[in-house]
């Protein structure tokens, strides 16, 4: 019982030093949490991807289109359930800095293939019925204060002109990891316009979304699709949605690795800080620990005192750090919303915070404990004056 009191009192005997140590741990935990959250936000698209979906694109590059006529052929391949298609529209809302992903999709099949985008029946019907209608994620609607019935104008980039849409539906994500910042509209609206203004670009799509019956069939189906179009004018490359998403992320793999590395380096630095603090305080208390030993307290109890103090300091910093991670991530996510549509702290990050803090607390106690136990009582007592 007193042991606990001693731990806490000892930990806070040197208020400034302990305060600074706790502050460093707090900052480290905060940095670690945010960095990890950024990384997971980066991979969020891939994480949220379904094993039931394949993505087919032009084998040469994503910027080359595929003919719309492929839909029927893909549909006939064994194991395929639904085929949808769409184009990256790349429209700009008022200003370039208002970035959000916008796609022209074949709505009926798209919504079927992406059940994680949850609609109310009424809004879904309204969206499907209106050729100029659009559907957006809840977060996106909130960001710009859009309401159902609003007219939204996007400035085309790859498809020139001003495009007017009427907001017909706002979807919610089924999971936390579902992207709620998409802007979807009717492929037909785009295609019909192209037929009039740029017939060469009509009846073409960038991507096919292919649903498969069972995830195990994905590889087989992908191979079958690509085989079907081998030696045709536009050869295809089909991969799982996850691989497709990771393909985008992979471009920045080096950066991610660097961030990951930094997040662990932060932990190592903090280990050094805590170990230093613990070594200093254990050295100052050599005499006191000698008294404990004199009174008959064994090595285990002395070790408990030092490790306990180390734990009190680290876990206090850890707790404060975790508490601050939430508002910090919320603020960060808000300002970075357009780059990271999904920005939330994964439970694993919190577990990792705790586990790493426990490890730091333990490691930091090793050297001071070993030193303290090594000192002979008589010598330890000599240090008191």
């Amino acid at each position, binding site marked *: 019982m007193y*042991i606990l009191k001693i731990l806490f009192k000892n930990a806070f005997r040197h208020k400034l030093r302990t305060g600074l140590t706790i502050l460093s741990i707090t900052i480290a935990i905060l940095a670690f949490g945010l960095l990890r959250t950024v990384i997971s936000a980066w991979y969020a698209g891939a994480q949220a991807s379904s094993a039931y979906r394949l993505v087919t694109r032009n084998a040469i590059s994503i910027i080359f289109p595929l003919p719309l006529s492929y839909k029927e052929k893909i549909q006939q391949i064994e194991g395929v359930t639904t085929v949808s298609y769409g184009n990256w529209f790349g429209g700009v809302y008022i200003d370039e800095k208002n970035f959000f992903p916008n796609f022209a999709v074949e709505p009926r099949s798209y919504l079927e293939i992406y059940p994680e985008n949850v609609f109310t029946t009424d809004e879904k019907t309204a969206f499907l019925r209106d050729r100029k209608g659009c559907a957006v994620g809840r977060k996106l609607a909130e960001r710009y204060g859009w309401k159902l019935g609003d007219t939204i104008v996007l400035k085309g980039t790859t498809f020139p002109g001003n495009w007017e849409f009427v907001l017909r539906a706002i979807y919610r994500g089924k999971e936390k990891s579902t992207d709620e910042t998409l802007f979807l509209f009717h492929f037909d609206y785009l295609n019909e316009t192209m037929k009039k203004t740029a017939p060469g670009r009509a009846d073409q799509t960038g991507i096919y979304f292919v649903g498969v019956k069972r995830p195990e069939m994905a590889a087989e189906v992908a191979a079958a699709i690509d085989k079907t179009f081998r030696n045709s004018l536009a050869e295809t490359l089909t991969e799982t949605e996850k691989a497709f998403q990771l393909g985008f992320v992979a471009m920045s793999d080096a950066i991610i690795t660097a961030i990951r590395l930094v997040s662990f380096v932060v932990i190592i630095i903090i280990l050094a800080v805590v170990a230093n603090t613990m070594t200093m305080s254990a050295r100052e208390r050599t005499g006191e620990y000698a008294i404990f030993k004199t009174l008959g307290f064994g090595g285990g109890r002395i070790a408990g005192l030092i490790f306990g103090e180390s734990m009190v300091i680290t876990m206090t910093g850890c707790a404060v750090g975790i508490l601050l991670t939430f508002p910090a991530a919320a603020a960060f996510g808000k300002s970075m919303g357009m780059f990271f549509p999904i920005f939330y702290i994964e439970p694993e990050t919190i577990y990792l915070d705790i586990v790493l803090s426990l490890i730091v607390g333990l490691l930091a106690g090793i050297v001071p404990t070993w030193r303290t136990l090594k000192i002979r009582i008589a010598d330890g007592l000599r240090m008191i004056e």
Partner: protein
Amino acid sequence: MENVRPIVEIKNLFKSYRRGSQVVPVLEDITFDIAEGEFLALMGPSGSGKSTLLNLIAGIDEPDSGIITVGDVDITTLTETQLAQWRAINVGFVFQFYNLIPVLTAFENVELPLLLSPLSRGERKEHVEMALQVVSLTDRMDHYPGQLSGGQQQRVAIARAIVTDPTILVADEPTGDLDRHSAKEIMDLMDRLNTESGKTIIMVTHDPRAAEKAHVMRHLDKGILENVHPQDPL
């Protein structure tokens, strides 16, 4: 006093320290007994090895050779862990610099050695209050060492030393850091512990006034024990 048997027996005790490659002998062939209920004053010039001898008897240091029997136990044969347990039960310590734990109150400091005993919380409280009563500090039990005078701190230290009712009480210059008045208080207290409670006390001191209270005085010089007590068999 009839048939006083020795509570401490020391035979052919050698102790040296190593300073680099040099071996410095501190105690050379020390042999003597301490009777139960004895109040022994160890005197001698600085550096003569008094503290070293006291530490050996109290089991916080190990001799090079020789036998130290306290009660029925030859403590030189104990392992470090056994020695720690033995100390907790058999030895009460009083030091020159009080050596209280600054983050604990007087009460808690006195209770500290009892935490290693199987006593219940209530029993511990009883013992602590009794010990504090002996040193007349019941009214200061919630004070921290920093809030007590030197003499009071030393009394708390004495309470801590006697609270487990140990076999022997060892004191290394208990009055060395105190003014004359407080020193007298402490010596009176030690005297009472010896005469009234029959405690065996081994005390190192430079202070002749303090030594007066003791029954037996031994003089240590350059590691050799002089003034051997007449009762000692040789």
